[in-house]
């Protein structure tokens, strides 16, 4: 116990020095550039180094697995069962031909096979639910949360993984939390201070820049490496910016490169404090919980905001929920009915560095943020698409689908017709009829032919 005493002051000194150094580094390399919008390019170098390490790790795993004859992972396969590519008609014809000598098309016991098998196939594996679990990876990115089998492959790899854990949790995490804290407090205090100024050009200018600065700090807090494409198409005042939704971070990513007015529901707690402070500096559209259900009220407020050209463009995520970034689901038509110019934006995350998808039924917000902050980095690309307006002959739903296809095509995401709300609700009845109609047309049509002949 006495041996510890001389170490005591040494440890305290060391701790003190390292914290000071850390904060100076933080200030110089991260916060100041964020305020002025310049970048040293440190993150890009970091990303390249990480990629090299991941490649090495993957090669090592493959070699190790071959040596030990372990079952090796295979690249992500689209589903676990082989779905027959034949259509309803072909299958039923085949079923019948293989049996009876008669060729008369009418109902037979064997017809039930097709539907039975299809039913069992969907029970085993279906399209929509797959979209909602995190996209699966081909190579390992040294996060054990993406693969359980790999820890035991080789000693060197395990050491590397352990080192990775140490770096992520003991170095990166405190750094990021400190940055996030700084960013959020600056946002709240900055916007409150700006809110005291009289309305005018000065206030607008300052509020825009306070917002921007804080979003930039938050971007660095997550070590998000973002590549923006086609920045000349960025949204302008009086428009609506529409993007696909993978995580709550989408807001930060977009807002750090442009000036937006946010739309959303007022929350309690820290979120609520931030929201209330933000709205003091410039007009955002926040709804009370009760107002959210009233579609006319929502539409009216959005229309008012959009018509005032001095107000910033609104940022909306029409999917309504977080999708796992391999596809784009049905857009809710509300934002497309307003009649303003729509600026579509496609966001695609690179899953190699960290999975940004928020499965809200699995993780709460805080758990999710912790996972984000302990990943290596968040790498994504943002494409600004040219503005679209609703044509006179199309209705809101068709317009929404047109925008959705454009976003899906640009981001390389699959354009699914499914409703994102399916994650929580049931299928609408209209969709059920298709298959049944087709089959009954086949049977009845032929039955009528027979009775006529």
């Amino acid at each position, binding site marked *: 116990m006495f041996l510890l005493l001389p170490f005591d002051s040494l440890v305290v000194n060391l701790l003190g020095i390292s914290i000071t150094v850390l904060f100076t580094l933080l200030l110089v390399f991260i916060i100041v550039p964020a305020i002025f919008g310049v970048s040293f390019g440190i993150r890009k170098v970091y990303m390249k180094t990480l990629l090299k390490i991941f490649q090495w790790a993957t090669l090592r795993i493959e070699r190790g697995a071959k040596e030990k004859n372990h*079952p*090796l*992972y*295979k690249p*992500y*396969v689209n*589903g*676990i*069962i*082989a779905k027959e590519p034949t259509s309803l008609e072909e299958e039923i014809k085949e*079923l019948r031909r*293989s*049996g009876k000598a008669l060729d008369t098309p*009418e*109902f037979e*016991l*064997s*017809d*039930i*096979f097709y*539907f*039975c*098998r*299809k*039913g*069992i196939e*969907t*029970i*085993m*594996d*279906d*399209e*929509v*639910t797959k979209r909602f679990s*995190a996209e*699966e*990876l*081909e190579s*390992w990115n040294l996060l054990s*949360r*993406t*693969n*359980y*089998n790999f820890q035991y492959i080789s000693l060197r790899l395990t050491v590397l993984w352990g080192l990775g854990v140490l770096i992520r949790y003991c170095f990166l995490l405190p750094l990021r939390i400190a940055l996030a804290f700084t960013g959020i407090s600056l946002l709240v205090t900055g916007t409150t201070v700006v809110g005291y100024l009289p309305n005018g050009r000065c206030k607008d200018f300052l509020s825009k820049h306070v917002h921007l600065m804080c979003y930039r700090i938050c971007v660095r807090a997550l070590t998000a490496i973002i590549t923006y494409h086609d920045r000349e198409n960025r949204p302008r005042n009086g428009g609506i910016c529409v993007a696909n939704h993978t995580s709550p971070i989408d807001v930060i990513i977009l807002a750090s490169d442009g000036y937006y007015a946010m739309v959303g529901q007022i929350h309690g707690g820290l979120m609520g404090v931030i929201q209330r402070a933000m709205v003091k500096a410039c007009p955002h559209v926040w709804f009370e919980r009760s107002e959210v259900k009233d579609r006319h009220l929502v539409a009216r407020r959005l229309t008012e905001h959009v018509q005032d050209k001095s107000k910033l463009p609104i940022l909306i995520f029409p999917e309504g929920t977080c999708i796992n970034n391999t596809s784009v689901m049905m857009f809710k038509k509300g934002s497309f009915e307003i009649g303003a110019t729509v600026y579509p934006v496609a966001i695609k995350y690179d899953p190699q560095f960290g*999975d940004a998808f928020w499965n809200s039924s699995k993780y709460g917000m805080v758990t999710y943020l912790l996972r984000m902050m302990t990943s290596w980095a968040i790498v994504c690309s943002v494409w600004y698409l040219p503005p679209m307006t609703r044509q006179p002959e199309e209705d809101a739903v068709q317009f929404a689908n047109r925008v959705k296809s454009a976003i899906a095509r640009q981001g390389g995401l699959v354009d699914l017709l499914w409703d994102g709300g399916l994650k929580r609700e*049931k*299928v609408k009845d209209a*969709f*059920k*009829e*298709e*298959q*049944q109609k*087709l*089959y*009954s*047309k086949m*049977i*009845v049509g032929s*039955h009528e032919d027979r009775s006529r002949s």
Partner: protein
Amino acid sequence: MGSAHSVPAEMRELADRTGFTSEQIEHLHRRFKQLSQDQLTIRKENFDSIPDLEFNPIRGKIVHAFFDKRNLRQESDGLAEEINFEDFLTIMSYFRPIEMNMDEEQLDRFRKEKLKFLFHMYDSDHDGKITLQEYRNVVEELLSGNPHLEKESARSIADGAMMEAASICVGQMGPDQVYEGITFEDFLKMWQGIDIETKMHVRFLNVDTIAHCY
């Protein structure tokens, strides 16, 4: 997945009984957990979470088949309230593809089991016979998607098919004979020559281990 590694002995036993490989059982187990939302048993309501299944006209019968005690190889009759993973696998095993190394007897047994599964799907009142009414029910369900179809047309289609079935099973009937219903033996007769083993199965893709993201 933790659970897969912790029950290897049970899994081997399941594999032997149902005929799936251990990888296939792992996949199905994951699917089971997804459907049951991490509970140990599934109820009928859990099948509502599969959107693609809504397309299917005989959805009700398929879900029903999972809870049908005759399919679960239980001694009693009627419907189970909920099923566990073992029962789930038992039902799925009816759709196993045939293997190359099966001999005649195994093939025959296999075929009979698949046909029995279908028979139970038709025979909803569990009396061992498919009556005219039950047949009509199935046809109506299959054709229910078409709003323009009148009930009468569906009925006449079913009646016509039933008469054909009767002629195959019983041959010529006298004017006073009433055809009670298709028994399982008659059912088997109707399927003679039809190669159902290759039609009534679901093939697994050949993946050994999939890297999963948790």
